[in-house]
């Protein structure tokens, strides 16, 4: 069991050796190096784990997934480099993608940084505005009367559909993209905050009133905390929408970021780079998603054992 990863890496490595004879050596060099490293580290871990129970438990949990991932790379090699089952220029093998990742790392890093800044500024703006409008709509029935129809009619329009309009209005492409991301985030955050606040259990509010609570306490210390589980659902929905909007906005107007990089690399038919950018996006977006999950676990510690998602 502990040797599953080294064995899998040897298999995948062997597959690669078998098929890479025709490929230029430069392209396969770093990929092979990677496998030697995986092999080496996993053998060392397999030895160390016999003295270290915590590591052994972690390995027992993670090893099947790692093994599958490594074997999947081998399958990828077979499908692309090996038997050319998919048209080649569009679907490079894993070695070519890794080489693109390494050779273009400076530009990829820079693009990731730009995407991060744009995403965070748009997301933060959308969350702040969404929370404010959500609390107002959820708490005050007159704001709900006027605001809800607007929210229901305007909100469902995909943020990206505003691109032609936002490019005219905004002073620069970056501002327009940040605004679109904010708009994409604003809708779910507002909707779920409003529903959370307006569905606060009446008895919590009654109890607070008999404890001497004024309006500020009722809103900020009862209704909003009670709405936090709902608000997090809105934050997650908004995050998904913001990724989508980010990539689209970057590939349309903004001249930086991962979305731009993908369409730029596609323009030069460098599909290795396209895949490299997808790999970075997967890591980047899932990291942000994980951070939001961690934040939720921390904020909703009082719900521990009740969360099912």
């Amino acid at each position, binding site marked *: 069991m502990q040797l599953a990863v080294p064995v899998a890496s040897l298999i995948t490595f062997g597959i690669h050796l078998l098929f890479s004879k025709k490929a230029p050596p430069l392209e396969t060099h770093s990929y092979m190096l990677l496998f030697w490293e995986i092999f080496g580290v996993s053998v060392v871990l397999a030895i160390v784990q016999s003295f270290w129970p915590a590591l052994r438990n972690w390995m027992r949990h993670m090893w099947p997934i790692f093994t599958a991932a490594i074997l999947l790379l081998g399958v990828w090699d077979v499908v692309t480099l090996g038997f050319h089952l998919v048209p080649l220029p569009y679907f490079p093998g894993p070695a070519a993608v890794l080489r693109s990742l390494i050779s273009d790392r400076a530009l990829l890093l820079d693009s990731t940084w730009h995407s991060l800044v744009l995403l965070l500024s748009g997301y933060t703006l959308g969350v702040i505005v969404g929370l404010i409008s959500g609390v107002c709509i959820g708490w005050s029935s007159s704001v709900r009367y006027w605001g809800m129809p607007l929210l229901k009619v305007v909100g469902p329009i995909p943020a990206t559909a505003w691109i032609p309009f936002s490019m005219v209005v905004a002073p620069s492409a970056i501002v327009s993209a940040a605004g679109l991301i904010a708009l994409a985030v604003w809708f779910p955050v507002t909707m779920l905050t409003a529903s959370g606040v307006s569905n606060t*259990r009446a*008895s*919590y509010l*009654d*109890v*607070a*009133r*008999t*404890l*001497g*609570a*004024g309006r500020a*306490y009722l809103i900020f*210390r*009862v209704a909003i*905390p*009670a709405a*936090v589980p709902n608000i997090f659902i809105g934050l997650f929905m908004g995050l998904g929408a913001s990724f989508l909007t980010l990539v689209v906005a970057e590939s349309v107007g903004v001249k930086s970021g991962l979305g731009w990089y993908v369409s730029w690399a596609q323009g030069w038919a460098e599909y290795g780079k396209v895949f490299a950018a997808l790999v970075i996006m997967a890591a980047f977006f899932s990291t942000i998603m994980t951070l939001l999950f961690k934040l939720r676990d921390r904020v909703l*510690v*009082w*719900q*521990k*054992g*009740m969360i099912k998602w």
Partner: protein
Amino acid sequence: MVTTNVAAASALRVQEIRKSFAVPDAPGTRRLVLDGISFCMDAGELVSLIGPSGCGKSTLLRLIAGLDFPDAGELLVGEEKILGPSAERGLVFQDPNLFPWLTVRRNIEAGLVARGVLHEKRNEVDEFMRLVGLEAFANSYPHHLSGGMSQRVALARALINHPKVLLLDEPLGALDAFTRMRMQDEVLRLWQNRRTTMLLVTHDIDEAIYMSDCIFVMTQAPGRIDRTIEIDLQRPRDRTSESFVRLRSQILEHLHFAGKAA
């Protein structure tokens, strides 16, 4: 003495209260829930309100709490008219309604925070946690607590404001029989310790006899106070004593007749 002055002002007076609600199924019609309720409570008294379900007991408590308003009649705490909810009238429900996002300690502090006096009265929080025996759970969240413990937190949370009247709406109704009897003693201990005027709504006749100085028996809707029974048994009371059992059968019989008449 100062304490007696405070006590004298905290009597509760309920005068000719009427309350009706709109019937959702039949627009334009109203259902009369309370039909001219009047009673008086002395300071430091523990009074129970019993009656068949739907007789408007909880409605009456909500009116006294100031969470709802009567159609007619007057409610007074001391000389002051009740115009809305206030920290001087605490309310404990059958569901403890602890704020699940706050720890036990922060739940108990809630009233002080709401009134903006936490800073001056922080030391009282410890006192009340000790009073209900929950120091060990100060940093636990409510979902870790049993029903009895939750209700103790709810009592401490209401008492920390030193209410003139504590309204208890079937506070022990959701507890199992053993916990309930233990909690009855707990509430009595708090009552004797703090001498808070308490109005207890219950439909457990034993509980009413065991705990209160006086029982108001209400009729089926529209609610009216049908009878007042003074309980002058020695405390602590014996649930199996002859006089206790006699009182119980008396009240049972009475409720039975009241049910038939309605």
